[in-house]
């Protein structure tokens, strides 16, 4: 919201206070100043120039060579504007001036071969408006060389203040002035009403009826007759322009002035266009359309609060007036509306119409029901002064249920309890009074505070404590240097995640964070996705059902960047619908934490001392197993292997705990990869981390290193290709003596020399005992026995012996 400091100073005397101090006090009391335009500083170099002569630029049609008198000398200046003429007084920027729009410096320049010693300015270059249609032409009576800050009264400071939604009272100059009055401990001066009324009684000219008093608790009308619609005087136009408003005519400008002065939105109707000279406030009973004064047809939903006349709608209450009753040049008689509408009613309308106006913005945050009369009278007064109108006698004030100030008790002790320091009672009383709150001392520790209706945000004791804290300054609240830490047990629900991340990175994985919002096609890949009702775009309309599709998007993007070798992991939530229809409870969907590993490309790349090594299923399996062993779940989970494809994988394995699948992964199907424009192999493994975390890992305990020597034997067999390594291993385990402790495979190969559909598997067997040295004999016996059994069981042939 733009605020003019000169305007503020009409209501509170700040003449002895620096602009910097005002800005910092505002920001530090909760009215954050986001931008400052200090005109005096901004325009300090600009002067009034006199265009003595002009001639065409010899080398450019659109340029003019002007002789500009700056009060001392004649300067040659090139101007590009079409409206420049000899005899004009203009805004002249001499060499060395910084132009506010774009912040560039005027230097001596040669333009198409002709020298130029300054610039003649347009309004937009000075940030006075967006107008760039031509240079600004000034009053010819102004003295050449005079500073424009003086000549044009550009000596204001314009503040852009961010007003938080809880402070509707600060959405006006008087509102901001009231805070400043409290901050600097000064009086607030509100303009007095000086109204001359005619003999004609308002009740004979108009009538008001509220048929929806819940949404319109108060409606005031004031009538002014025989007005002359014309341009506003300069001071009024200046005031509005400085805060970014475009002047229209005297009536509209006056209502805008009052809105920005005291925060009450007003609307002026052409009284003669109101059927039966009557106002009825009611809500729509059917869907209709309505033409607002911006010449747009608006669709009105059911129960939209409307201002009607005797026959039809004439305005959308609190939002915008209608075309059918607006003020035009021929308007003679005016009805001024000054009403209080219920905030949520206006908010609903504004949201439904997608239309936010200065008026609706204030109504939906909460205006003051009890300033309506003042605002209407001030408006009538200004109209009579600036539009020669005759104010009808009296006022129409429909206010069925008067809204009175709330009363709240404030304890000084509670203030200290919340803030951690004592603000002395006298100071508290002063702050509250300066803010316009009426106080009464109840007891030593207690005040009764009456909250005026312009502060709807102050509802409780705590709200008063905030007022005290912010006006007295948060800087005055001490910063403790000691805190108590209780010895109760601390928990960290992210601890396991951290351990997992550490393990994954140690295994060479980089962590990704993908957007859980994705297209329906991608999300549907791994489950029944939940749709966003109001998505930003179609490619973000669903929540992911697993981490896989996000990872594939990332892989695809990286490959396009030329990065083809990737080892990535992610920890994140996935979401699936578990019931049909609308989500009405936490039982209708499942949010769980997942963990995904993906690898693609080479595990080692070709370098001077290593060959490139394409990642494969066994890399994935090995990484997943190392990961599980590092988090102590290696002997808890059981593998299942699937050689046939499912929707995602060509072949895969699962990790199970008591029949429950906790994770699965394998080689991704080409069909799936194609969906993401990936044409290299990708291996992925995804865990249900929520479930994985619920399993207790085996506690670690120390095992002494072996004291007695091991005896190691190996053998290799030629077997049918279909025989699985794991089956042979399990068979050996079952049939061997208890002295055989480790069985591992050290070679696998297939060759025509072995025979059709044959392969060779070679095993290393480690025999040992923790308590004694083994004899060669007992090992040899077991070893030979195994050879016989394996040969028989698997129709195998011992190799090499």
């Amino acid at each position: 919201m733009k605020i003019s400091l000169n305007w503020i100073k009409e209501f509170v005397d700040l003449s002895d206070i620096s602009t910097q101090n005002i800005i910092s006090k505002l920001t530090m009391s909760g009215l954050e100043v986001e931008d400052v335009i200090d005109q005096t500083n901004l325009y300090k170099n600009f002067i009034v120039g006199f265009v003595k002569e002009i001639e065409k630029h010899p080398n450019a049609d659109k340029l003019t060579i002007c002789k500009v008198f700056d009060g001392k000398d004649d300067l040659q200046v090139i101007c590009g504007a079409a409206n420049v003429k000899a005899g004009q007084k203009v805004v002249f920027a001499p060499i060395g001036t910084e132009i506010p729009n774009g912040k560039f410096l005027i230097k001596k320049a040669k333009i198409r071969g002709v020298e130029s010693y300054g610039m003649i300015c347009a309004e937009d270059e000075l940030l006075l408006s967006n107008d760039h249609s031509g240079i600004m032409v000034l009053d010819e009576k102004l003295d050449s060389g005079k500073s424009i800050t003086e000549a044009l009264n550009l000596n204001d400071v314009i503040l852009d203040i961010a007003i938080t939604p809880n402070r509707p009272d600060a959405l006006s100059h008087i509102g901001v002035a009231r805070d400043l009055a409290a901050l600097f401990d000064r009086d607030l001066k509100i303009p007095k009403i000086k109204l001359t009324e005619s003999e004609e009684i308002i009740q004979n000219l108009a009538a008001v009826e509220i048929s929806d008093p819940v949404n319109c608790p108060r409606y005031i009308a004031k009538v002014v007759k025989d007005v002359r619609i014309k341009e506003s005087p300069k001071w009024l136009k200046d005031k509005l322009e400085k805060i970014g408003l475009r002047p229209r005519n005297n009536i509209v400008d006056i209502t805008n002035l009052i809105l920005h002065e005291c925060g009450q939105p007003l609307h002026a109707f052409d009284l003669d266009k109101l059927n039966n000279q009557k106002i009825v406030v009611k809500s729509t009973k059917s869907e209709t359309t309505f033409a607002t004064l911006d010449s747009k047809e608006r669709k009105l939903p059911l129960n939209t609060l409307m201002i009607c006349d005797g026959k039809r709608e004439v305005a959308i209450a609190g939002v915008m007036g209608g075309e059918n009753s607006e003020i035009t040049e021929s308007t003679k008689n005016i009805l001024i509306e000054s009403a209080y509408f219920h905030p949520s009613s206006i908010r609903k309308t504004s949201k439904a119409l997608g239309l936010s106006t200065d008026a609706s913005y204030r109504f939906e945050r909460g205006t003051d029901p009890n300033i309506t009369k003042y605002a209407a009278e001030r408006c009538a007064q200004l109209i009579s002064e600036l539009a020669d109108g005759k104010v009808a006698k009296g006022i129409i004030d429909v206010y069925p249920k008067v809204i009175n100030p709330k009363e709240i008790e404030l304890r000084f002790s509670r203030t200290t309890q919340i803030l951690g320091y004592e603000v002395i009672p006298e100071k508290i009383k002063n702050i509250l009074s300066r803010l316009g709150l009426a106080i009464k001392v109840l007891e030593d520790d207690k005040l009764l505070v009456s909250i005026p209706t312009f502060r709807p945000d102050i509802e409780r004791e705590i709200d008063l404590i905030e007022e005290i804290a912010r006006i007295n300054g948060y800087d005055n609240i001490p910063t403790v240097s000691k805190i108590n830490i209780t010895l109760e047990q601390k928990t960290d629900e992210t601890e396991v995640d951290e351990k997992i991340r550490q393990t994954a990175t140690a295994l060479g994985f980089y962590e990704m964070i993908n957007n859980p919002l994705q297209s329906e096609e991608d999300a549907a890949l791994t489950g029944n996705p939940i749709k966003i009702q109001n998505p930003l775009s179609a490619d973000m309309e669903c929540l992911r059902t697993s981490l896989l599709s996000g990872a594939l998007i990332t892989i695809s993007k990286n490959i396009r960047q030329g990065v083809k070798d990737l080892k990535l992991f992610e920890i994140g939530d996935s979401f699936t619908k578990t019931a049909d229809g609308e989500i009405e409870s936490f039982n209708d969907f499942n949010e769980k934490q997942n963990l995904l590993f993906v690898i693609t490309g080479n595990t080692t790349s070709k370098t001077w001392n290593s060959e490139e090594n394409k990642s494969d299923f066994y890399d994935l399996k090995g990484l997943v197993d190392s990961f599980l062993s590092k988090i102590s779940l290696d002997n808890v989970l059981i593998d299942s292997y699937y050689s046939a494809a499912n929707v995602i994988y060509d072949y895969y394995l699962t990790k199970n705990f008591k029949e429950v699948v906790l994770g699965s992964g394998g080689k991704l199907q080409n069909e799936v990869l194609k969906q993401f424009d990936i044409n290299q192999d990708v291996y992925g493994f995804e865990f249900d981390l929520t479930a994985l975390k619920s399993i207790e890992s085996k506690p670690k305990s120390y095992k002494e290193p072996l004291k007695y020597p091991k005896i190691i034997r190996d053998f290799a067999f030629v077997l049918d290709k279909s025989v699985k390594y794991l089956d042979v291993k399990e068979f050996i385990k079952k049939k061997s003596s208890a002295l055989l402790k480790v069985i591992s495979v050290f070679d696998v190969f297939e060759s025509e020399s072995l025979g059709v559909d044959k392969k060779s598997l070679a095993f290393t067997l480690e025999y040992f005992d923790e308590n004694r040295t083994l004899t060669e004999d007992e090992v040899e016996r077991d070893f030979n026995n195994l050879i016989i059994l394996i040969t028989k069981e698997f129709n195998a042939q011992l190799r090499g012996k």
Partner: protein
Amino acid sequence: MLDKNITEIKESFYSDIKSVSSIKDVEDIRIKYFSRNGLVSQLFEELKDVVKEEKPILGKKLNLLRNEVTAYFEEVKDRISSSGLNKENKLDLTLPGSEYIVGSKHILTQTLDEIKSIFKGLGFSVANGPELESDYYNFESLNFPADHPARDMQDTFFVSKDFLLRTHTTPVQIRIMEKQTPPVRAIMPGRVYRNEAVSARSYCMFHQVDGIYVDTDVTFAELKGTLVSFAKQFYGSDLKYRFRPSFFPFTEPSAEMDITCYLCHGKGCKICKNSGWLEILGCGMVDPNVFKFVNYDSERYTGYAFGMGIERIALLKYGITDIRIFFDNDLRFLKQF
């Protein structure tokens, strides 16, 4: 004369051989003392000029010297050559080392780790909560009435009338307080969503850390002390800070904490929008209305709460200018941290 020279050369030999460490040093010594024109040979030359009577004694002395130093020289020579210190190796040591890849946590995770460890040190627990939340936890119980303009502060993605993607991690405060009686002291990191157009400066999803402390006698002064301690540990102990009144429905009084812009040191720059200050977190005293929802007695207990955005912190800390880069997962970016 010769007698004196014998003593000198003996001393010089032992001093030279002390610093021998390579075959080349050994060779230098051989040349200096034992070559044809070496110092020892020169002594024998000098013996020729010695008067007859002294010849046998000095000759004997000279022979003793030669035997002694030669033996010691051979010993040192053997030791040096067998120690391997000097074996010439044919490896080109300048070739690059083999590649070993250690992955890394995402920079946002690393930033969060740092924040977590500071608050854990201040006695906070760490808690999680769901991202798909109910309107009740995300808004209503946090004192955002329906149809209140405060809801406009957080553009929301809805999945149904009553369920939405949480717009802040603050709902976890309610979840903790529902489960626990005071004292409650915890931070709640997590992912949040806002229905805002994606640009260099904003993304539809980001991360926050919320925190809460409720007990008897918790004051605004303690809120200030705790957050100042955090900021000094995280941003550096010499920072300047300020607390500015602000508005959040779930705290009253509310504040925003600014620190001096560490890029321009308070002079004003593009990053701090010429104010010299950077806003780093929002905070305040827990609103009594919030306590009502979790059945805490607000006369007995008071508390403070705070929240900060992790992306914003990381952007500033690492000079990143486009928030989207966090979620692109370009390996060339991930590898840098």
